[in-house]
Structures are given as C-alpha cells and as structure tokens.
C-alpha cells in the first residue's frame, strides 16, 4: 500500500517516473504546506498557486533531493523560494509593523470589566486575536515564527529554508515572539494576560 510507504520510498518511485508515488507525496503534504503558506503569505489564492508551483518544481527537481534533510523541509524550501520570487516579481509591499493600523477590526470596543461577562475569552475570539497579532508581524518575523511554532522546524532547518545564518534565525524568532507578545497584549481586553487567554 502506497499509504504505508516512507517518504524515501515514495521519492525513489517518483524519481523512476511513478506518478502515483508522487501523488501520494502530494496527498501527504499538501495540507500542511498549504496551511503554512497561508499563514506566511496571508493570501489563500497566492498560497494555492505557490503550492501548485512548488509541487511541479519538486517533481522536476526530485532527483536533486539528496535526502539530507526531510522531504517536507526540502519541499517547504522550494515553496518558500517560489513564494519569495513571485513576491519580488509582483513587488508586493512588505508588511511592516509600523504601517499597520493600531488595532484590527476585531479589537473589542468596550474594554470595561463591568461590561465583560467574563475575562475568559471564547476560543474562536482568542484564535482570531492570535491570528491578528500574527498577521501584524513583519513577514520575516512571521515566517520564522510559523516555521518554528507551527511547523516545528529546528533552527538549522529554518536557516536553510529562509536562507539566513543560524544566528539570524535565533534572533528573529526571539524578536518575533517579543513582537507577537506586544501585539497580543495590545489586543487583549484590559487586565487579561496571555497566559489567561
């Protein structure tokens, strides 16, 4: 059964021209890749295009995959490069924390404790807050944070994917967390802390 095969086995079969094996690899990783790219790019359409292009590119370059890193991190690197290349072509403005509005539309308008039935926010609200706070991060910080927290990549892998030194990754991740914390604290209702959220 193709489902039980390892990545390496599927890759080997794909390289030999078996499209079904590659199809299985796609099935295995498309959701994860798409989800991560949506978070990074903040654009479903763009993420979809990048994923499509990434898989096609992966197919053509699969022979060059040496297996030194995991297939997914290699695939993500391919996708990330495509995304950045497309972005450069389109000259999309880089998101900067400075030019973002001070508060998003989901910021509660009334922060007075008396008008809050409970400090404990609903899950959906909390997730929306986190998403908003994440989106406010400059892209280079958002990317490394997503790769770390949501994709569980090691610093070394992140450095390879993003193409920056290891020290830069460490620095960016810490800075990203600091900014996300600041954003969250701004968005949270008065008196509420992140740990309570």
């Amino acid at each position, binding site marked *: 059964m193709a489902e039980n095969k390892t990545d390496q086995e599927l890759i080997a079969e794909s390289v030999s021209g078996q499209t079904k094996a590659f199809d299985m690899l796609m099935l295995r990783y498309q959701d994860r890749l798409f*989800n991560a790219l949506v978070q990074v790019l903040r654009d479903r359409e763009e993420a979809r295009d990048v994923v499509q292009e990434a898989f096609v590119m992966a197919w053509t370059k699969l022979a060059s995959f040496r297996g030194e890193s995991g297939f997914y991190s290699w695939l993500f690197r391919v996708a990330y490069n495509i995304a950045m290349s497309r972005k450069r072509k389109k000259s999309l403005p880089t998101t900067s924390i400075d030019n973002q509005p001070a508060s998003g539309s989901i910021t509660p308008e009334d922060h007075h404790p008396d008008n809050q039935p409970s400090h404990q926010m609903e899950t959906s609200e909390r997730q929306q807050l*986190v998403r908003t706070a994440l989106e406010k991060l400059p892209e280079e910080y958002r990317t490394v944070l997503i790769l770390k927290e949501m994709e569980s990549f090691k610093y070394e892998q992140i450095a390879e994917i993003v193409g920056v030194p290891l020290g830069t990754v460490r*620095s960016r991740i810490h800075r990203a967390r600091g900014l996300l914390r600041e954003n969250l604290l701004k968005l949270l209702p008065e008196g509420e802390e992140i740990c309570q959220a």
Partner: protein
Amino acid sequence: MFFVLLTWDGANPFRIMKSEFDPELISAYLDGELTSKADRELVEQHLAETSADAQMLDDFRQMGTLLRELPSESTPPGLREAVRNQIERETLLSHPVDKARRPLRGSRIVQMVASVSLLMLISTVGTFYYMSQQMTSKSDTSALVMMEASPQSSDIETDRLVLESAKKSEFGSSLNLATEHKENDLAVMDGNGDENGDENGAGVAVVTSESVVASKTRSMKRSKAVRAAPALKELRAAKLAPAAMTGFTEEIPPLPAVLSKKSINFINTLATSPKLHGILKPGELVRYVTSNTITQDVNIVELSVVDVEEAFGTVQVLLSNNEIVPASQIQMAHSDGDNDSSKDQPTPFDKPSLENQKKQEGMVALYVEASQEQVLNSLVQLDGLKNIRQLYVGTVPNLTDSSYGVEPVAEDETGLKKFEINQETTSSPLISAGEKSKKQPATALDAPRWRVLTNLNELDKMSLAKSLFTQTGNRKGYHKEAVVMGKNKKQSSGTHAGEYKNKKGKRDATSFSVVQSADSFSYQIPVHLTPGSKNKSNSREIAVNAKPFNGNSPQKEKTLSENKHGDQLISAGKDKQKPGKQIPKNHLRLLLIISLNEGS
C-alpha cells in the same frame, strides 16, 4: 590564570554578567536549541532571578500553544489535479523530467552504444544545420534558435524546423514593420552579447524573430505555470505525429493598429482587472487585444469560468448587445433579405457538435470579428461578470483562416484583408445547402460577427493548446519576455510610453511611443538591429502613421518613403476622400475561449 572582573566603581562583577545576558537565549532555551549545559544553567539561573523574563518565557510558551491551536486552512479542491495536469503537460512539452535523472542501466556495451548513437545524432544535427544554413533564407534561423533554446525538445523542434522555414519567410516583411528602430533607444533584446551584424533590412526581422522565439521558448521551458488545458490529447497525439508540429509557432506580436481613445480607455480598464492578476500593463496588453493591421493575426483571450454553458450564453447576449451577431445571421440576412429580428436572439449552433466540443475539451471556442472598440468593450463587460473568474490573453494561435470559418477574399483601401465567411465550416444548422452556395455580398465582410469553432482539426487543436499553454497574464506570469511593456504614461504631448523587456527579463529603459495629434497618429517602436547594441549605426526607424480610427472619417493612404538614414517609412499620405464608399472597419479578429476554471 585568574581574572577578576571589576566594574568602574568596583561593583559586583556579576551585575555586569547579568546585564550582558542575551535575552535570545530564552527563546533558544524554550525551543530546546541550547546544546550546552552551561548555557541552559545560565538561563535557568537568570529566570530564577528575573521574574519579568520568567513571565516572558511563560507567555512565549503559551503563545506557541495558541499558534498551534489555530485552525488549519483546508487545501482548495482540485489542487492535485492541477499539479498532475501541469506535470503532464510539462513532461510532454519538454520531455520527461526524469530523462536526466534516469540512471543509465546496463553494461558498458550499452553505454558505448548509447555514446555512439549520441555522436551520430550530433553529427546528423550538425549536417542538417549546415545544410539549412546553405539552403535556406535568413528567416530559417529562427527555427534553429528555437532548437538551441530548447535542446531538450530537439526532436520536436527538428521536426518543426523544416516546416517553420517557409512560414517564417511569409512573415519577413511584416516583422520588419513590427519591429521598428530608433536611435538613442535601447535594444529590445540583449542577445547574450552576440554581435550579429546586420547587412540589410530583412535581417531586422530575423534577429527580432530569433530572439523572441528563443526567448519565448526558454520562457516556456522555464515556466512551471501551466494551467489545466483542454487539449492534452492533441498534444500527446502531436508528439507522435511530427507533421502536426506546424502548429507550434511563435511569432513576434505585430504592431497593433491605430488605437482610438475609446480603445485606449478600454485597455486601461482591462489592465486594472484583478482577473488579469495585475501582471499586464496597458502597453503590454495592447499587443494582445488590438487588431494587427499588418498580419491580421487572430488574438486570443481565454475566459476561465465557473460554468462554461452559462458563460457561453452570457457571452452570446453580451456580444449581441455590442452588435456583434452570429455569422449565420448575417448570412441569413443577406440570403433572405434584411432580417434584423433575429439579431438579439442567442445564436443557433450545431448542438451535438458544440456539446461534443465541451465534453471533449471542456471549453468553447468562438471566433469573433468586429471593430476593435466593440471587442474591447465586450471584453471589459465580460471582465465584470462574476461567472468569469480569470482572464488570460495569449500568443497568436497558428490556426488557418479556414479554422475560423473565414477566407480572405479582398483587400480594402488600407491594404487590409477582408474575410468572407466560409460556408463549408459554418456550423449553423439554419443555413441550408442552397444558401451555402450563394456568394455573400461585400458588405457582409465588414459586419461584426462571431461563430463557434466546432470544426477544429487535430492540428488546430494542438495549436490552440499551445497558445493556451503560452498564454500570458496567467498567474505564473512567465510571459514577461520579449514583450512590449507599457507604462501608459500619457505625457503632455500625448505620448504613450512603454518599455521593452529583454530576454533575461530585465527591463530596458527604452520606450515606444504612440503620438496622437489632431489629424495623425503614429506608433514607433525602437529596435536595434544588433542585439544588445545601442549603436546609432545599427538602429533604424520605421514609423507607421495613420489617421485615428473613426468610422466616418476618410482613411489616409499609406505611402512608402525613406527617412534620412535611407530606411523605409510607411506613413500616412494626404487624405484621399472617396465619397459614397464606406470605410471598412478596423476589425479585430479574436479567438475567445471559454474554459472551465480549474478551481471550479
């Protein structure tokens, strides 16, 4: 050796160590990235002493949990299908991707045989190249460049080579007009630094053609951006049938016709459409949605829709609203007398054939011939329809006139060909055999009309698939090369400036201009004869001047003259009034493809 670290005031040295604590260690500690035990202990000690940082670590930990709890985005349907299609197409067009990666199995003997075969192949190709150099005209080289540009598809291109040669020569003169030259303007192509000196005017077209063809071929190879297209089967079949390769042609887009202000406005509107992904700029779009007065090639626009049938109905109504009527109705009108009552009715068409086409190709192809403004207005209106998700414009499909159901029968005062509706290929069931045999009045030639293309042969389908494959404005945006780029900067003099991109995708700071005054209109594009050279002696200029399109105004007669460099100039002469004779409309020939949106 023992060091005692003292501060300036002799305070506790550990205070300094504390202040120098690298806060990034906290994140690294959280992520398990501190491999040194000493580092971990240092952080733990720091956190024990600094409650604020300890709180920060807790917050970081909690934030990580929150991020991981975010709901996942579901992958859009059809993604794998699209990838599969794209891979299949790329594999077909550029040969199997595993060609390079496939290990050469077998013994040394097999390898030797392979080596000998390779040598023989090289020798054959070399001989063929030499012979073609000796026997063919300059224009033949464009096909060779294609081979060079696309070595992986050399077998396909070799088949094309011979077939392309004759075709290219037909375009020689028109390409001269299509690639004009002006001093102090930069080259269209960088030419990889080659200095292919130009001896005569014909060389202009050759150089340009070569570069564009090579560029586009490379572009096609590089592209990973092929959308699901309808005619895979045809492509596959074509691979097995080299003779069918005549469908693969890439020509430099000829200069557009004179643009009216309305047309320019329509183009500007279209260029801002999000359905075109904002990739095409107005000056660039001009190439694809304006009439080509020189070659009268057929433009191609693809409407990617949610529902093909519904869109087809909408398109019919919309075309009718723009007074573009089914060709069959024009024939009816001229056969049976004036019968305008059916003008606003959706056209009858050969249903089984159309259904078959939709089933087989997942699309409907319409040939539209109408005035530029009518077509552009229709496109702008189509762009506004919700059912239409994406718009694509593409390279000129190399279909024969009979494929469109027309036949060139006459030329008007400006030298433009007129087309008669080809009765044999008109699929309307309303036309009887008797009517089909009747000769159409000349006025029918100018009537805006459209028809469904249901009689495409295999070659046509392949050409169409190729055109869709290389279509521009798609989300991958690989169309950028060797295409006129426009900035739509309207200067005080009314100049419409733009720029070219060279083969490497870099923009050259050159400009073409459309200068419009009260009674004249000129379109000038600079091109250097020698790729990469800006040398004055290597550049020439051809300007096309004409009266702006106006249905009631007399056309200026084209004249041929020479500028001070001895170059030929085609320019507008004095007004030549021909009272009582209707000026033929500046028709735009368009192939309108309605295809199913891959995400639908």
